[in-house]
């Protein structure tokens, strides 16, 4: 019984490590000067303060969520991570694509917020 639990947690831990690696790689594009200047330039033109603040908030939440996922004890997030892993994986893949294209900033924001939302649900009961 104990070995089954250990094996399951090891498996979930591997899932977490893979997602963390992808989140880290994607953060490089999210934090990049190119992305920041794209949002900043649009803000200077359209003066859309709501969109600008959403971007700033998303940058911050993304880092903090990633760190929470990193710091959580695996037992406290295992069930939710197993359940939401597929959504998280595809969410990160979409975000990576959107950040590489960097065309529609609203779509980029929605994709970032989707990833943050999934990670937040995973770490909701994290210890």
């Amino acid at each position, binding site marked *: 019984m104990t070995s089954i639990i250990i094996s399951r947690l090891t498996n979930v831990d591997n899932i977490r490590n893979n997602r963390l690696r992808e989140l880290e790689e994607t953060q490089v594009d999210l934090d990049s000067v190119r992305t920041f*200047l794209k949002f900043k330039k649009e803000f200077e033109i359209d003066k859309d303060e709501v969109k600008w603040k959403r971007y700033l908030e998303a940058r911050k939440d993304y880092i903090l969520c990633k760190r*929470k996922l990193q710091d959580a004890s695996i037992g406290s997030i295992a069930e939710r991570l197993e359940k939401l892993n597929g959504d998280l994986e595809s969410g990160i893949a979409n975000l990576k694509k959107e950040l590489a294209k960097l065309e529609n900033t609203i779509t980029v924001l929605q994709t970032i917020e989707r990833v943050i939302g999934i990670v937040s649900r995973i770490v909701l009961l994290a210890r």
Partner: protein
Amino acid sequence: MKNKIHFPIIIAVAIATTCLSACRSTDEYKKLAQAGTNYSKALNQLLDLAVVTRIDESSEELLLQDRENNQTSDDYNEFSDSDSNRIDLINRLKKHNSLLSKYFKLLQDLAGSDAPERTQTAIGGVVDNLNTIGQTLRESNLIENKEVFQGIGKLIVSSKIRGALKEELQKRNQTIMVELKTQQELLNVLSTQIKGDLKGIQDRQELRLVINPLLQPTPIADEDTWIATRRELLTQELTAAELENASQALGDFQNIFQDFVEGRSSSGRINALLTDIEDLLSVIETLKTKE
């Protein structure tokens, strides 16, 4: 008659061989101890850098947020709490590293001691603490592959090693191998994380120190400083990659320890490790200057 002549010679040769063998293991142990001390210092510096880069990444993001959108105490606390978690973990690692360093120093005492009992007792206490902290580290999220510890078996101590040193190594070589493996795994993860943190810092500093002044309506006052800052920031990525390579090379200390216990000569490996350590310390120094 023949036997009478040869018997003392045989005894003398046997004594000389034993002495040479003992001297050899003591000499080799001194080299191992030197490598262990340098390894421990380098690891400590790397751990300090891991704390600094994490804190600086948070500070840079907080400043960026504050420039664009005034921050609240809640915003500050979120980053601060997240930094504290990392600092706690690094402090445990530093304690683990300091105990491991203590173990190798005591082992050195044991190698040259005529009355080893006190040292043996001290080693017991150090290893117990080391193992307790090591256990929490192995359960931590920084260890990506927890299965690597299952394959670590007991080593057969070389016949070249004698006396109390041999007794100690026979008793605890498996434990020490597990603890060294723990550090090796943590090094891999930490060096990658530091590299990521440095990239985060670099992007934010480029915005703060290079792009923001450039976008201001007034021209840059000190152009030479601006050029130097930009150059430093854009080449920082190379240094971060060097750091990752050099710190991962530190993991070879585990193989050196294994070679020593099993009686294989590891002079070449020790020298290579000492070079890697020098490289690592120089990269850390460069990064500290740039910070």
